[in-house]
């Protein structure tokens, strides 16, 4: 894998907007075929990074390539290799769905692209709306059209900038099935999202950005192992707990008790001690560590 030419390569990227250092030396390599997640709070630099890859923004320092093509020097090849689904729900109200796709495909110099246009419209459930003006499409359909526009030139690398923000559950699910399908066919996917469970389910590798810096970059599995703390929440009959446990248990405002632990044996001891003291457990909830915990943790420490 280290031998292969990365699908996306960025090194030492810096970008300043006025007083804000949007990117402060970002370096990343994304290999062909990866489903890569880019996470970070608002203003972390995710969109700036994507904009530099897409040629919408020019970096102050550093460089970026897409499929080996420099995004500035060799912008034509770089842009042919890249399909971008922008974050904003934008459309051109002058045209209908088919015209929009035909024109977009023309921008890439593609003449006879009707077959592929029909195919993507079919896969994205846009076929029955082909002759509708883009203005009359629902928000979800506009989002699908943006995805279709990003795919008209069959780019090997697809970048999705928060594609599921404000999208209903059904569409989100079908969108992910579609994108996962593209990934299985060999497309490299770079995704930014605020839905961490989404990133956890889809991305093989994740980078976390904070204030324009990469603060973590690893496989999703390794990242999840960074936090080994489980959490149990207990509702007990009575207000007291055994004296030996008072320091370990946190009493929450709603009257429940909480304990963080790394070994299940610890939880077993607690339950045995409670039973021994004649305290009945009315309710218990277990919380497994997820990407959100890791994310919160890393953001706090970084």
């Amino acid at each position, binding site marked *: 894998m280290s031998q292969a030419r990365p699908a996306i390569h960025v090194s030492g990227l810096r970008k300043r*907007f006025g007083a804000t250092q949007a990117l402060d030396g970002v370096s990343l390599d994304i290999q062909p075929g990866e489903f890569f997640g880019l996470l970070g709070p608002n203003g972390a630099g995710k969109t700036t990074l994507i*904009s530099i890859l*897409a*040629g*919408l*923004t*020019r970096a102050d320092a550093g460089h970026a390539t897409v499929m080996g093509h420099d995004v500035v020097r060799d*912008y*034509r*090849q770089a*842009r*042919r290799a*890249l399909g*971008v689904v*922008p974050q*904003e729900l*934008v*459309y*051109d*109200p*002058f*045209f209908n769905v088919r*015209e929009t796709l035909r*024109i*977009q*495909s*023309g*921008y*890439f*110099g*593609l*003449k006879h692209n009707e077959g592929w246009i029909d195919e993507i419209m079919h896969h994205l459930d846009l076929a029955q709306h082909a002759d509708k003006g883009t203005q009359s499409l629902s928000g979800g359909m506009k989002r699908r059209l943006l995805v279709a*526009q990003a795919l008209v*030139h069959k780019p090997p690398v697809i970048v999705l900038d928060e594609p599921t923000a404000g999208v209903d559950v059904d569409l989100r699910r079908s969108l992910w099935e579609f994108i996962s399908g593209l990934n299985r066919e060999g497309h490299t996917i770079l995704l930014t999202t605020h839905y961490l469970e989404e990133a956890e389910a889809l991305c093989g590798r994740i980078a976390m950005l904070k204030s324009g810096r990469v603060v973590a970059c690893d496989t999703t599995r390794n990242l999840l192992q960074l936090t080994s703390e489980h959490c149990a929440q207990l509702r007990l009959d009575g207000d007291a707990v055994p004296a030996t446990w008072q320091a370990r248990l946190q009493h929450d405002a709603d009257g429940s008790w909480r304990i963080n632990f790394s070994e299940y044996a610890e939880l077993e001891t607690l339950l045995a001690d409670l039973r021994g003291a004649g305290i009945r457990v009315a309710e218990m909830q277990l919380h497994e560590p997820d990407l959100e915990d890791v994310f919160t943790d890393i953001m706090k420490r970084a």
Partner: protein
Amino acid sequence: MSGLSALFYKEMLRFWKVAVQTVVAPVVTALLYLLIFSHVLEAHVEVYPGVSYTSFLVPGLVMMSMLQNAFSNSSSSLIQSKMQGNIVFVLLPPLSYLEFFLAYLGAAVIRGLAVGFGVWAVTLWFAPLQLPHLGWLLAYALLACAIMGALGIVAGIWAEKYDQLAAFQNFLILPLTFLSGVFYSIHSLPPFWQGVSHANPVFYLIDGFRYAFVGHSDTDPWLGLLVAGACFVAISALTLALLRSGYKLRH
């Protein structure tokens, strides 16, 4: 289809889909000017010997309509795309800044010519057809539309809001066209204002274009062609430099 022809096609389709607003409406406006001014002035004004006021006015109106609509086409297309955010659709593909320029310019020229032709066609009822210098007509029409099309690109890129574009249009384009001899010959002006008019490039466009219709002009049409050509080269160079630098389009 190359990227250039796709963008040109898109720009053409854009104005053609709303042709009532982009072609028919300016023709009607020009017709109203013609009806009012020729009604009021026909009997009182003879600018050149043997040329009726209506015949004098028609080329001015045709040129004014071409100028305003060529400017409108590129500037409003760009500001709308910027405001709605769909400008990314043309920024993401592998289009060069030269292709970008030529596509927007080409469509602006076609819209200007279409409106100009429309105005001329409806005024045929009022002024008999005469066209002694077809070559001059084409040269001036093309140059005028190209100058304003390029200027429209600059304005569309520069403006960040609709009212900024409106200011550009109301405080620059409109005075330049109205004060350029559309409705009068600058020889009727006091010497100072004649001098000022000579500094207005639009004056040369209207004067030279009128020469193609009536065979009379206030200045030598070759001089006008030189001025217009120099204007086009200068504005194009500015536009290309802006596009190349990514000014207000690529941050």
